[in-house]
């Protein structure tokens, strides 16, 4: 357990958060290597099923990040997504999934620094609560 490192899935929108990750990269800003990135066109594309599937497949944490409100490339994608997450998040906590497991943020293309901060925070949060057990499918038994 001492050597345990969480696996965290970051689902990033193409136009802002992914570009933010890029900026963090080219600016050589350090952030934890626990992050695996999936690029999607817009946070509005994120089906809650993606998040559940990630947890089921063994990710210890999931972060979804899109453009700041008002900045969506498709004008309203992140607003629609926000409503969805606004219900998903309390529902997951309700059934007993730790709030740290699934998190949401807005990161713009210019926020490389912030991208690294958010990744660090999510990683530390998940490290604190330990490996995911709930909802994980036991294929590795």
């Amino acid at each position, binding site marked *: 357990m001492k050597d345990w490192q969480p696996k965290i899935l970051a689902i990033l929108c193409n136009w802002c958060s992914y570009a933010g990750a890029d900026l963090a990269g080219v600016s050589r800003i350090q952030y934890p290597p626990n992050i695996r990135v999936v690029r999607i066109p817009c946070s509005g594309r994120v089906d809650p099923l993606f998040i559940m599937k990630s947890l089921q497949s*063994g990710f210890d944490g999931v972060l979804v990040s899109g453009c700041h409100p008002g900045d969506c490339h498709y004008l309203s994608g992140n607003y629609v997504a926000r409503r969805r997450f606004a219900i998903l998040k309390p529902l997951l906590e309700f059934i007993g999934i730790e709030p740290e497991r699934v998190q949401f943020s807005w990161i713009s293309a210019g926020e490389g620094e912030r991208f690294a901060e958010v990744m660090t925070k999510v990683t530390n949060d998940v490290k604190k609560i330990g490996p995911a057990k709930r909802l994980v*499918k036991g*294929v*590795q038994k």
Partner: protein
Amino acid sequence: MVRLEKGKFDDFIRSLAEDYIVYAAVTTGGKSSFKVVASAGEIDEGRLLTDRSPKEIFFPHSEVLFEYDEDGIRETEKAGKPIAVWGLRGCDVKSLAMLDKVFGTARQMPDNEMFEDPYWKRKYDNSLIFGLACNEPRSSCFCNWLGGGPHSEDASDIFVIDAGDVFLMQPVSDKGKAFIGKMTDAAGASAQDEKRAAGASVAKASGADEKKAAELASGARAMMAEPPDLDGLDERLKGIFHEDIWEEMSAKCVNCGACAFVCSTCHCFDVQDEGKGGKGKRIRIWDSCMFPIFTREASGHNPRPLSRDRFKQRVMHKYSYFVDNYGESLCTGCGRCVIVCPVGVDIREVIKRVLSFEGKGAR
């Protein structure tokens, strides 16, 4: 016939559990199913029918066919002790015998064991089935429509009648006779095999016992309404295959799988792989012809696109196709589907409607 005092039922189950994995009706959270038990106290004797079908003892909802990893395929371990099932109602006993025709034999290629189902056979072939008589059938029961009856001994190894303070046990199959024989021997044996002697405290049934059994049987039969004549139902169904009557009969069906999943004879399944990286397992899972995805092909074409088509398939398979292949209907009249159907489809009414239909195609 032998008698087992109910006071000694717990000893009986405990001793049975030494040689067998014993399944019996257990109720948890208001719903009952057949589960492994170690003592009589866990058994819910009051239930006429379990909510879940006992087919899951031998054909579980989800069953691992094999596991695999980088080194290749590993077959799942074979069962250790044989299985004994206590208290299966006549309908459920019969359903297992029907499933054995499907899984245990190779219809198309007789004597070709390649076409037998090893997962079913390794559990069912060595099993010991205690059938239990129904002294008070429910209004949803219709076993007598399909050649069964509340006191039907068919396919049981040992048939048990609950006669108040005692269980009366009638050996039926050779396996059952051997078991009862061993028990009576043990009862006669001295205390040197203490455990066995205690567990097997059975005695020969008296004339009064036999009389009581016969009374209970005729009483139970009298409680069931006269069945309609199902002769020729299979051909009749084929005749009306293309008639509009199906539209009417299936109108309220919402195509869920509740009927199929509580059915004691429905046995369709899906095979899927679950794994990650190079490791995983191939499993089979219950499936139902009620679901649109059941027949939908990769191209998107679905030979049974409508709700009506799928409803029809289930009825046809049970009361016509299975008759062609195995000589009897794939239904034992347990009535579980009647009880659970969320929209009140009653298969008995469907059958009656088919029998009374006088349009084209009916003979």
